[in-house]
């Protein structure tokens, strides 16, 4: 099975094909948002939101056979696309792998430059929350 680093390299390669064109990069991210699995409605509650400045994000995680499964959604298509990338990298990994992951694909694809500071902060908040779930599951495993 490919590692977190492998998947990140794949994503970087995909974005390199898009080149410098900002519009097509954003269109691509929005398309990725459409590939997200439907979010379970019972978890569409305030306690599962991550507050960004303008867009809303819901995130929930469960543990199956020692691996973390994330489900997430947003009210904006670009954010959904970003979530789908994070999920692609981190889903079905052990808490330990997630906690040790060096998520460098975001700066490598120049996302901060494309997205601006508001979305970049939101993206960082999302990653933190995903790692917090992993930490909680790891603590439970070790207990």
């Amino acid at each position, binding site marked *: 099975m490919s590692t977190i680093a492998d998947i990140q390299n794949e994503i970087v390669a995909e974005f390199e094909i898009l080149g*410098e064109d*900002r*519009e097509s990069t*954003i*269109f691509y991210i*929005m398309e990725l948002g459409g590939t997200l699995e439907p979010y379970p409605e019972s978890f569409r509650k305030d306690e599962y939101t991550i507050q960004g400045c*303008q*867009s809303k994000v819901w995130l929930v995680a469960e543990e199956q056979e020692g691996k973390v499964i994330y489900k997430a959604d947003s*009210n*904006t*298509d*670009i954010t959904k696309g970003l979530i789908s990338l994070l999920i692609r990298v981190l889903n079905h990994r052990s808490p330990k792998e997630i906690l040790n992951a060096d998520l460098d694909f975001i700066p490598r694809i120049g996302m901060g430059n494309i*997205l*601006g500071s508001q*979305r970049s902060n939101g993206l960082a908040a999302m990653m933190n929350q995903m790692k917090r779930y992993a930490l909680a599951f790891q603590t439970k495993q070790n207990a």
Partner: protein
Amino acid sequence: MSIQVNSIRSLFPILHQEVNGNPLIYFDNAATTQKPKVVLDAIQQYYEVDNSNIHRGAHTLADRATRQFEETRESVRAFIGARESAEIIFTRGTTESINLVAKTFGAKYLQKGDEILISTLEHHSNIVPWQMLCEHTGAILKIIPITDAGELVWEEFEKLLSPKTKLVSIVHASNALGTINPAKKIIEAAHAIGAKVLLDGAQSTSHLDVDVQALDCDFLAFSAHKLYGPTGLGVLYGKRELLESMPPFLGGGEMIREVTFEKTTYNTIPFKFEAGTPSIAEVIAFKPALDFITSTGKANIHHHENDLLQYAVELLQDVKGVIPVGTAAEKIAVFSFNIQSMHPFDVGQLLDAKGIAVRTGHHCTQPLMQRLGLEGTVRASFAVYNTRAEVEVFAQTVAKIASLKNK
């Protein structure tokens, strides 16, 4: 006389750049306007040649700085048609101007059970200071409702006016929708029952000819940075008798006549409300901004901007998926809209990819957005240096974005 837009554009250095590989189209003028070179030069000149603290200085530089500072006050007076320059108070912005009135007029005239009237259209800066005042005094905040088009419901306003109404604090032109409120009519109705009126002129002063004596408003608040001037500077106009009757806002230097540890007496207006060293460079650089507007002609500016607005409406009215928000009969040059099935933030980001700067979100008018049942809008707002060609690029780009989700 019409606007020579190309020669006007040549006065604004910032406009001549590419953003994300495209010529910058700056349509975020309701947030802040760009500054002509004369304004930038005035700031530079002040710090290079005249920098000195104003008033009471016994030396030449202080005298020069003071003279220029007070010349701006006179320009502002003329710009809004006030009786005398003592009625012009410099603040940090519209927000501070409104807070000043809430704190000082509020302390003097507002009591438990008194009512303050605002409208659904207000910016947060004309809501929160009154909520804070109401919490403090026990006064009550009442809200004038609007129609779906974004206009005040006049009959409801009249119903809300009562002998309990002490102040009507209302936006002259809505930042989110562009609606121009019938200021004169509002002021007459409020005065008829003895209430004072604060006009939030943050948006109107850059687009309309606002004359405080013709309107007879008691207070007018606005910001220099939306009038092609520097940031961090605002104006509060108030009628002399009111300003004199109000207690000071901040305590400190400049605002005093005499200080002893037993008792302090206060300076006359406007200095009573200008504690501490003000934004001297910004005040001085505001004068060339006002001169720019006056020499271009307020009527010409309004005519040009209105033409751009009508053109944008015309180009986008039949585009599938584009939903205009705010369709009042009288509007400043603000085009607020949404695209069906898309979040305004995403639309803004796609426009930015083409070098088009707009604002997205609730525009600091959350209660208005709640009233309209919207999370936010995309807002394009035009200024004197914008062109029909820019509106065309904008409309084409919006149409392309709309087609993504609206086949």
